[in-house]
């Protein structure tokens, strides 16, 4: 888009840049505030005293306040179970919707879309009854399984598989591949950026998820980070904003570190999934 360097649109460009940056700053403000509060005393934090002394005390207090290692492990297990199930289910379902003609396909696809409308949160009472009946209350599977058949994931995979040129499918079949062989050797590799992008979204969503785990867990051995954090931060426990911020930063630190470390790959994955 070299046209953007033409003289006339320069003003538009400058305005756009300023707007974009303002937006970004507003956006990042809560995170920035959390980081800043975590390293300062409560009085400095609530008074926005920018010259206050830095301290690590908040982290020490937060760390000692709850079994964080157990929570980290639970969350890690949870996102793994969710992601593994999602990858299998969305791949097979996405492939079926993208490339097969089977009876009732359109009705099924409408049901999938319906899930995008009626989010599980609103049916939380009914989901709770279901999970209890299936004996999965207070287990990692109980938290994870309802998310396996992710409508968004199926939609995304269907989209990625649809964008694979039909000739590649046909060429693979002529070269001797079975239906599943074509899926494995052609579609899955072609959708790699989409897989990576989807995995990132899934991991971060379930790392951050709160409401459903809160309802379905009631013991320390299954409780994920977010629920632990909310218990820790509940008004009854009497901890202050700085300590809560420290605990929050601790909870999202693995995500943040992973994001910063693999930034380039993440961006690539999103860009490439986006270009298709």
């Amino acid at each position, binding site marked *: 888009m070299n046209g953007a360097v033409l003289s006339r649109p320069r003003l538009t460009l400058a305005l756009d840049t300023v707007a974009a940056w303002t937006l970004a700053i507003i956006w990042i403000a809560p995170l920035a505030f959390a980081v800043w509060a975590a390293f300062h005393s409560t009085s400095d934090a609530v008074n926005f005293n920018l010259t206050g002394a830095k301290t690590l005390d908040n982290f020490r207090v937060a760390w000692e306040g709850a079994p964080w290692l157990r929570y980290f492990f639970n969350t890690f297990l949870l996102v793994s179970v969710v992601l593994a199930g999602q990858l299998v289910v969305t791949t097979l379902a996405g492939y079926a919707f993208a490339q097969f003609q089977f009876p009732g396909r359109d009705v099924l696809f409408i049901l999938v879309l319906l899930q995008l409308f009626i989010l599980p949160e609103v049916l939380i009472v009914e989901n709770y009854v279901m999970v209890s009946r299936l004996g999965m209350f207070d287990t990692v599977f109980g938290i994870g399984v309802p998310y396996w058949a992710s409508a968004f994931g199926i939609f995304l995979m269907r989209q990625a598989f649809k964008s694979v*040129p039909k*000739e*590649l499918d*046909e*060429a*693979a*079949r*002529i*070269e*001797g*591949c*079975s239906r599943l*062989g074509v899926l494995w*050797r*052609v579609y899955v*590799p*072609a959708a*790699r950026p989409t897989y990576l992008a989807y995995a990132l979204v899934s991991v971060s969503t379930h790392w951050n998820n709160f409401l459903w785990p809160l309802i379905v867990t009631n013991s320390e051995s299954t409780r994920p980070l977010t629920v632990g954090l909310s218990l820790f931060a509940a008004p009854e426990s009497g901890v202050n904003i700085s300590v809560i911020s420290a605990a929050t930063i601790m909870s999202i630190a693995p995500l943040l570190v992973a994001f910063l470390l693999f930034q380039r790959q993440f961006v690539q994955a999103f860009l490439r999934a986006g270009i298709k």
Partner: protein
Amino acid sequence: MTPADAPFVSIEKITKTWNGQLGVRDISLEIPRGAFVALLGPSGCGKSTTLRLIAGLETPDSGTIRIDGRDVTASPASTRGLSMVFQSYALFPHLDVAENVLFGLKVRRVPKAEQRRKLAQALDLTGLTGLERRKPGEISGGQRQRVALARAVVAGHPLCLMDEPLSNLDAKLRHSVRREIKKLQRDLGMTVIYVTHDQTEAMSMADIVVLMKDGGIEQAGRPVDLYERPASTFVAGFVGSPPMALIEAEALPPALTAATRDGIFGIRPEHLELAEAGAGHLHATISHCEYMGSETFLSFDTPGAAGLTVRLAGEVRKAPGETAELTFDPAHLHVFDKSTGYRKAR
């Protein structure tokens, strides 16, 4: 297994429609072993459908397809023992050149040593040696085309289907790759079925040209048969560059057309000449003057005659709008039936 003179590929009364839309209708065709057959026709004529039916990418509604004597009508593409070159080349973007070429051998679990040997051979044959580790996105269009060819020949299948393999190349490259494909086919003794809409490709490469129209076969034969004895006005107007002019009886002197007043008369550009005033068979107005380097084509408009063109050597400068007279040897006239368009016995 089969007698040596049996056709290698045989299609019997194949019909294929989609929701009532015509693909091909009741076509039959026999292709001898080792032949280069071009399926030629305008878009929508059914040539690609025919190729895809042979490949097993579509199943016919009725009819039988035999390859090497075996009825493959219901067999999936993967078991028909053939290779195919796609218009888009259909290279796998995540695999490098070597992996693309070896794709089929890997699927079929051919031993590694044999894979290596065949790869070296195929790359050598297509002039790709040294590019093994490049991805399809990192090589030129012409090189991609060769990778597709290498993948088609590496398995050593005796039958290779090609779907407009040259249409994504530029004019220069098209000409040289045309020759390479022809050479490859001859050297390896492959049977090639080649789909194209370009009569130049079909005429210059094929042993047998099958000209299709509206889902049926209009004429099948050697290139020279189609050129010198076109079976219908459609063939006459499709083959040749520029194609045959078609003239109504009324536009010609009665003496020439006395025998068949209900005919359409065809004449090739190379058989038409400019005549002195008063000595021509036809009066016409110049509509276009196209200089091609070695020759100039003068096109004419006149009522009752379509595609009147004269081939003149070197550069000739004439302005559109000038009138001229044309003459020809009546022996070169082709006669077609006016109502059916089919050739009349002559």
